[in-house]
């Protein structure tokens, strides 16, 4: 099977449109990473995401739509509760009345995740490569994690969902949140939001291995300052934001 070849070469793709914008962007370009289908999550890797808030457009919902299509979560008004994995949030400093930012907020894939600390069943867990997930076969739907998460990143599935995505099993009575498109990462592709943002011509999202000094995300982080949301909480977020302050 082509998507199981050991280095994932066949899955590598260059996004030409993104490369053309390289001058202004946080070095977009080759997004794809090495697939490790058999070996499992690599403890030497720390997957991360960099959001360039100076390139994120207020009216744009491309990342949200891409996520919804990829992971099959329903629109908010269909009676299944408000399932959301990624939201566009408008931020403005109330004291200065200055220009605001529009940023996507999803699970920040914390190094010290409060959702994992409070989970009584170990359903919430952190994979060896830093991705925070819910093991729904263990989740009892207590929703402690939703209360513990400072970013309102998690959602509870209140009712049976008719349409099930082959990419993401979804069951009534369990909690879910952004998986960083773990199914795509494991076959060597970048998350759906990152790909769609580049296709939309904004390239505001950079994905990669924070532990690899040569990765695109590390190069971007060397050139541009970036911070976590609520850095005062010291959660070691895997998602960083450039241009907030």
């Amino acid at each position, binding site marked *: 099977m082509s998507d199981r070849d050991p280095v994932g070469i066949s899955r590598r793709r260059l996004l030409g449109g993104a490369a053309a914008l390289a001058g202004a962007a946080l070095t977009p370009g080759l997004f794809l990473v090495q697939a490790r289908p058999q070996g*499992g999550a690599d403890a030497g890797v720390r997957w991360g995401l960099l959001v360039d808030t100076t390139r994120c457009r207020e009216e744009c919902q491309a990342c949200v739509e891409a996520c919804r299509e990829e992971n099959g979560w329903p629109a908010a008004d269909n009676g299944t509760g408000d399932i959301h994995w990624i939201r566009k949030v408008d931020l403005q400093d109330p004291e200065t009345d200055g220009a605001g930012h529009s940023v996507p907020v999803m699970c920040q894939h914390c190094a010290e995740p409060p959702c994992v600390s409070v989970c009584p069943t170990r359903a919430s867990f952190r*994979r060896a490569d830093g991705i925070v*997930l819910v093991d729904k076969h263990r989740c009892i739907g207590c929703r402690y994690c939703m209360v513990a998460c400072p970013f309102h990143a998690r959602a509870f599935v209140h009712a049976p969902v008719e349409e099930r995505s082959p990419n993401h099993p979804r*069951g009534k009575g369990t909690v879910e949140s952004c998986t960083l498109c773990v*199914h795509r990462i*494991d076959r060597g592709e970048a998350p759906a939001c990152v790909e769609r943002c580049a296709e939309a011509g904004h390239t505001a999202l950079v994905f990669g291995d924070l532990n690899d000094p040569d990765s695109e995300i590390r190069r971007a982080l060397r050139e541009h300052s970036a911070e976590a949301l609520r850095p005062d909480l010291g959660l070691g977020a895997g998602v960083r934001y450039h241009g907030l302050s």
Partner: protein
Amino acid sequence: MRRRHRLAWIGSGAALVLAATALALAVGGLPGDGGEPAAIADRPEPRGEACVHDDPETMRREHMDLLRSHKDASVREGRRDAERSMQGCVECHATPAEQQAQGAPEMAFCTSCHEYTAVEMGCFDCHSSEMEGHDER
């Protein structure tokens, strides 16, 4: 008092024999009908040469444990194996389109046994039984 105890013992012994007979009938079918209960004989033919385990007896007995341990490996450790995934099951065992058009359930291969043995199967309440796409969990 003692007499009532003895009666209780005889009663529970008889119940046990009845239960054992019912179980034998459920598993093996009526003697002389070829061993396969009729409802199970109706299930759609799986595609492919052999299951991930060659031995159907093992799969019948242990598929739920195998699925659980594969889930732990793939979800928690990221060790994926497309063949042993839920999607792998669906790819070989989903009901062919023409039989679905005649009203057979999507996963009749599973439901034929599960209904017969009255064991509820919740897999496809959450997992997709679509034949396209990658689940690999």
